[in-house]
Every structure is written in structure tokens, then in C-alpha cells.
């Protein structure tokens, strides 16, 4: 570990991480690891490089592998590049009963990629996820921090058209 890694985390990211670190006792800095990894991921177009995980581990004074355990445990962390817009489609039971397979096939047809893939222009990634807790308005998907619910092919087209 060298100090170089920490220049990987931008000043804004570090300030943001510090806010989270402050919420925990000083000897338990690593409690902020989940927030710190999220902040690092947002800084890097939505995915975590090995160097970034190292940098977070060093910043929080923990072993790199312990940070990697967290990064590889939660599906919200991406360990390889993703498109500009990551479309997280719920295919869990409620959404499935309400037609999530149609949502998937419509997206796959429109974007020309399968679940888990990214379009060649790097704009869209399709990701299958488990229940996001919006069963009441199933089917749904999430893009960035927004939930889109009661999806129909028309609505999906409108949502995608509105994205840059």
C-alpha cells in the first residue's frame, strides 16, 4: 500500500467518506466501508477497480481483502465496467407474476443485448436483480436512484428516450 492510492479517491469523495467515518467510533473506521465503496464507485462511472478498493481499504485502515469481501458480497457493487445507465430489472416473484419477462424481452430486443451485458456504445447495461421492494407497482426496474414502476413496453420506450 502506498500513498499514491489515495490520490485515486477525489477530494470530494474523501470529504464524503469522512462524513460517514464521523458517524462511527474512531477505532471503527472500517464501519464506513459500504458507504465508502459506494462513493468510490460513483466517482468512477459506476464500477470499482481493484485500485479503488485498495484505496478505500487504505483510507479506512483495513486489509484490502476485507474491503474486497464486502465489494464482492453485495450485488450493488460492480467489479467490471458498466454502461452509463444501469437498468436493474426485478425478476422476483411479484414482478414475474406481473410480466417482468416481457419487460426483459422488450429491453433485450430494443437494446440488442442480453441480461448482464452492456451495449456496444456503453450507454446501457441490463442487470437482473432480486426484489427491490416495489411489489405494489410491479413490474419495475431501477435506473440510477429512480424506481420506474407499472412498466409497459410504451412506458419503457418513453423512459429510455428521455435518457441522454
Amino acid at each position, binding site marked *: 500500500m502506498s500513498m499514491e492510492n489515495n490520490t485515486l479517491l477525489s477530494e470530494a469523495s474523501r470529504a464524503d467518506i469522512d462524513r460517514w467515518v464521523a458517524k462511527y467510533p474512531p477505532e471503527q473506521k472500517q464501519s464506513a466501508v459500504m458507504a465508502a465503496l459506494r462513493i468510490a464507485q460513483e466517482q468512477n462511472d459506476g464500477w470499482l477497480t481493484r485500485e479503488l478498493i485498495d484505496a478505500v481499504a487504505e483510507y479506512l485502515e483495513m*486489509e484490502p481483502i*476485507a474491503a*474486497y*469481501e464486502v465489494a464482492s*458480497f453485495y450485488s450493488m457493487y460492480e467489479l467490471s465496467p458498466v454502461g452509463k445507465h444501469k437498468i436493474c430489472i426485478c425478476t422476483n416473484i411479484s414482478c414475474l407474476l406481473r410480466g417482468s419477462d416481457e419487460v426483459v424481452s422488450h429491453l433485450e430486443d430494443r437494446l440488442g443485448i442480453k441480461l448482464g451485458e452492456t451495449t456496444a456504445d456503453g450507454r446501457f447495461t441490463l442487470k437482473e436483480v432480486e426484489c427491490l421492494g416495489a411489489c405494489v407497482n410491479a413490474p419495475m426496474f431501477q435506473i440510477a436512484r429512480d424506481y420506474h414502476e407499472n412498466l409497459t413496453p410504451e412506458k419503457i420506450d418513453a423512459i429510455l428516450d428521455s435518457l441522454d
Partner: protein
Amino acid sequence: MVTIEINGKPVQAEQGKMLIEVADEAGITIPRFCYHSKLSIAASCRMCLVEVEKAPKPLPACATPVNDGMVVHTRSPRAISAQRSVMEFLLINHPLDCPICDQGGECTLQEMALGYGKDISRYSEAKRVVGNPDLGALIATDMNRCIHCTRCVRFGQELAGVMELGAPGRGEHMHISTYMEHSVDSELSGNVIDLCPVGALTSKPFRYSARPWELTAHFAVSPHDCVGSNMRVDVRRGKVMRVVPEANQIVNEEWLADRDRFSYTALNHPERLTVPMIKQDGQWQETDWDTALTRAAEGLRDIVQRHGAESLGAWAAYGASTEEHYLLQRLMRGLGSANVDHRLRQQDFRDQAAQPAYPSLGQAIADLEQLDAVLLVGGNIRKDQPLLAQRLRKAARQGAKIMQLDAVGHDLAMPLAEQSIVADLHSEMLGVLKALVSEKGEAAPQGLGEALAALEPSETQRAMASALLAAPQASVFLGNLAAAHPAAAELRQIARELAKLSGARFGQLAEGGNSAGAWLAGCIPHREAGAKPSTQAGMDWLQMCEAGLKGYLLHGIEPELDCIDSAAARRAMNQADFVVAISSFAGEGLKAQADVLLPQATFFESAGSYVNAEGHWQQARGCVAAPGEARPAWKILRVLGNLLDLNGFEYTSVEAIHSEMQALFGDVAMLAGEDWQAEQSWRPPEGLLRLASHPIYRVDAMVRRAEPLQATRDAEQAVLRANPATLDVNGLTGATQARLSQGGVSVVLPLCEDETVADGVLLLPSGLDEACGLGAPFAAVQLENVD
């Protein structure tokens, strides 16, 4: 205390203790995989589920604290059914490749499956397949067999102090692995082999070479460091197949350092000496024992007759057995020379007469865990005495303040409360002493007033002093680098005063495996066996070098590699007319310098006793016969004694020597040592200072030849290290290699920028092939750019 009932039997237990511990103490076995008494509780395998009355479902015994009136059933239908169900799940992804698995026959999963498994699996789907990370030369991996108990992960985190293995991924995708393919480099890594309850982590050198049921167990004591770890040596058909720890809670607990575990791999090294050899006209010839011994005896006698007995000297290995040390010094003193020494990694002997009976830890090894403050001076305890570091690490986890005062900021893999990295250990220690004196408001200790008068302690020095003073249990330790210091006697004096003033204990982390035994046996020039002053004056090893002795008897050493001042050793050997080497190995260096080579049995092949740093005297009986003509050294020395017509060399067994020594030693702690005072006169020489001590895998002839150990990261030592500021001062910024010159000898080696090295210091360890012929540590050296 509470009373609980297990399987109808009332059991007294401490409130809050875990059920599995209570059951273990009561002799009731509960199956388990992830639970280990020395590790934190994970409760991840669920194998230890038991029925507790009034609990709605079975509870894991490892994570269930006992309460008064608890009624537990470990063998009820409900408990058994829970255990069998867990076993069924564990076996779902297990490959059941026992016939080709090294763990077969000593596998916890295999044993448990016999008791709790079904004959036929109900699982017909595909099994999980995971890759096998390459963990380096010591540990083989078959991760499909892993049951995710995480013992290896917890061992790294909690005991080795470095989390090298982890469990990334989730659920089905969880696997044990390093972070992005790298080897496991901990000096304690081999312990995960024992901890692994299945065959996922096995010993690479032992792989596919024997089955556990073919092996017979023998006991041995490791002579590679001053812990004296107990080892179980597994032997098949007269060959050592592997080494595993023999549990001894007061010494090594259940652990072994990798150095102890894998040194056996050198036993059949091509440089193993198996036939006596004599040099005829510069050519080595194999011969028989009679010829070789007669030649040795004649040569030694010839030196005595022509130059006097005082031109004869003997150097012994730190790790030789106490019996060997004893016989060697008896032989030398019998010939009329007290020039006998084993302290080949020290250079200051001024205080030797005032030293205690042996370099002692000053406390029991197990007590290290209870310390509240520790000042470690000069030495990488983590690599030099790995299991002592492990004890301190436990103390550190409980909040002990570990303080490092060194010329290199070694990573000790434990949190440090204070750290001071300076080239001049001597004045730094004086600073701490001054701080202590001021804090207590007392007068300076006798003889140190002048040295302390002008000092103004730094903040770190004050903090160290306060921590020592405030701690109910504190210790000051001198490590291997401090022992190799040119003013080591002064450092010992200061350390003793520090301890005295702060109420701490003073301990020496002695080099080698049996330095204590050597001191007690009289393998030192100034004392005979049992710490009696020597009747004739003898020279320490550096004085022998200085005096240019004519004849040497070497015991288990390679002078240029084993001596801290390789240049002096080389000169001494070149000046000698006749050199007899009793040795298990003979490399080119020894062959160039010796005239007679007598093949010696290693500690695996010979009985002997060893005294560890706390004064614990342990006996081993040997495990296998030595190869070829090699013989136990006590027999070689006995016959030499006979051939030289010395009295009292009629021993018929090693036990006879042992009981003779026992009578002489009396109480091992007989001599406490006296105060010793010197003018504190040491000043570092001008210019760049070279630091050197023997790295972990260079400490003795056997370890140096253990190929798996030599393939580890810790063996990569032939590098010049200095910090950026030092490199800048010497005009070497950005250079990739440099020429180091010390005392007319120079070497060109790769150069590495290392922030942990103190200013004005260059680190190049001793004991390396590349460092042969270079002088002692803490001497001025020159560094030149050769890019």
C-alpha cells in the same frame, strides 16, 4: 458458577461460557468444524447444533452461552437429526474425492461423515466448482473441498496478524481466496494446513507422498529459534515425511512457525554430508570414520604441540543440542583451551561476566500474553521468533501498548502504540531512560548520570517511558539486532535500568534455538558448565579471529554464513592451518575452508536436549537414523575425546551426558546476573551505516537448504534497502542497483527504496550468500551508483 445438565449429567460451568467449551471440559464430544478454541467464534458450519430444552429450535453449541438450569441434549433424536441434516448440506458440494485427497485418514469431515452422513446422497444436481488459488510454495489448495468454516481466515486475522485469506463472494459464490492472486506470505502460514478440517489446504511439500496411517509419530524440539517449539515428526520407513505441531500450551500452544514445520525438507539436500571426508593436497576424498577421526585428532594435537593449546578454538551452532555444546567445551577445555564460543551473531562481550546464567526472556513465554506494555528494541520479533510475536499480538489485541524502537520499522503485524525508527539505538534508549528518570523525579542510575545529563527527551521517548511506568505488567526486550550491536553491552545496561526504574521485566530474545543451553553447558569462553567461572581464560569468537588462531573445531556451522562478521570469519579461517568441521551439510564455502569433514546427524536423527528462552529444558530422542555414515555429534565428540586421550569421554548414551549435566546445572535459574556499568561511549560511525541481522530463512545450515522455504517471499533478501532521503544524500535516487563496499569487499545488488529504514542506514542482511565476506553490522559502508 452455574449448574447445567448435559445428556442427563449435571455439569458445573462458568456463567456465560460457551456450551461447546463446557461440554469439551466434561468430556462430552459435540461434532464441529468451524469452532476452534484458539479462534474467535464464527458459528458458520452449524455442525454443533444441539437440543436445548425450552429453546424453540436446535442451537449451535459454539455460540450458545450457558445459563443456570439449562438442560442440553447432544445425542437426542432432535439433535442428531439436526446434525445429520447439516452434514447432508455440507456434503452437497464436497467432491468426495477422499481416495486422492491428502487429508484422507485424518479428515474431520471424513470422520464426521462416518458418524452423521448418509450412505447415499439425495443430491443429484451439479456440484460447485471453484478455482484453486496459488498460495505459494508451502500450501496446496483444492478449494472444491472447502466447507467454508473460515478457520484459515480467522487465523490470519487474529493470530498471524495479516489477513491474507478472505471469503469473497456470497452464498453459492463464496470461496476462500487471497485478494487477487498472490501467495500467502505469513511466517505462520503453515498452521492453516492443520486448522483446515478438510483437504482444501494441505501441505505442498508433503503432497501425495504418504498416508497418515502409514506414519509413526516421533517427538522433536525445534532448534531454529529460542521458543523450542514441540514438533510431531511423522516418519515412514526411516524417512521424515512431514512435521506438525505437538501441542504444548506453555511453549508453542498448537502452532508452529513455517521455519520449524518445513526445515525437514533439507534433510536430503544434495549438499547433505553423509560420508567422512578429508582434504588431500587440496582435493576432497571420501574416507572411513577411523581415518577421518584419526586425521582430525592428529591435526588438533599437532596444533597444540606446535603452537600451544591456546591457538585452538571451537565455534558451535546456536541450535546444537545442550549435550553437544557440553561435550564440545569439555573437549576443548580438556585440550587446554577455553576458546569456545557459540555467540557468532554478537560482537560486544564486555559484560559477559556479569550476565545471568543464560540470556533469558525474564518471564514465561505464556506470560507474554498478559503484558500491558512492551518495549521492543532492535529486532524483528515477527520473523526472528514468530511464536513469541504471536503471543505479543494477543496482548496487543487486548490493548497492550507495543512500542518499537529500532533502526528498521519492521511490520510486526500488530498495532503499535509508539514507534521510533532511528539509526542510533543507543542514544534513543538513553532518551527513554532520561524521560523515565525525569518522570519519576529520581536521580540518574549509577554510572549513567553523565550520559543522561545533556539529553532532552523527545515526545515519543516520554510517551514510551510513561507507558512502561503506567503498565501493571511491562517488559523491555532486546532483539537480535540489538544483540548484534557493537555496543550491545551498553544497550543491555540501559535496558536493565529501564526495566528496573519502571518496574518492568527485562528480557533477551536470544538468537538461535539453544543459546540458553550453550550458556549453561559452558560453550562460552568465560564460564564452564553450570555457570561456573572458567578456570582458564578464553577468547570470545571475535578475539579468536583477531588472534589468528591456528586450528578450529567447527560444530554445525558454516563460518562465513553463520557469523555476523563474515569478513572476520573468513580471515580467521584463512589464517588457520587446520580446520575440522562437524557438520550435516557442506557447501562450497565450508569445503574451501575445512580440512576434515565429519558428517553429523541432524536434530531429527539424534537425541538431545534444548533449553528455550524461558529456561524450559526439553529432551528429544531423535526420530530417524541418519543417512549414510552420518553419526550423532555426541558420538563423534566422544570418540574424538578418546582419540585425544581425554578423561571422562566414556559415555555410552546421550542420557549419561544428560544426567552428568543435570548434576552440574542444578537449578537452571541459579545465576541472576549482576549490574554492569560502562561509560556509555558508543557513537555511530560517520557516514552510511550498514544494518544486518540474519533473516528468517538464513539462520542455520538446514533452514538455508530447505527449498520450499527458500521459495517464499521472506527468502528474498539480497536487496540493498534505504529510505528515499538516504538514497538522495548518496546520489542514488532512481538507481536500480548499487555497489556496496565494506572493509574492502564489495557487492553489486539491486537497490530498493524502503520507507521503513531509518535515515542514514542501509539494510543488507547477514547470512546471505551475496553478503559473504562483508563485515559486521553498524559499521560504515560506501554505496556507489553503477547504473
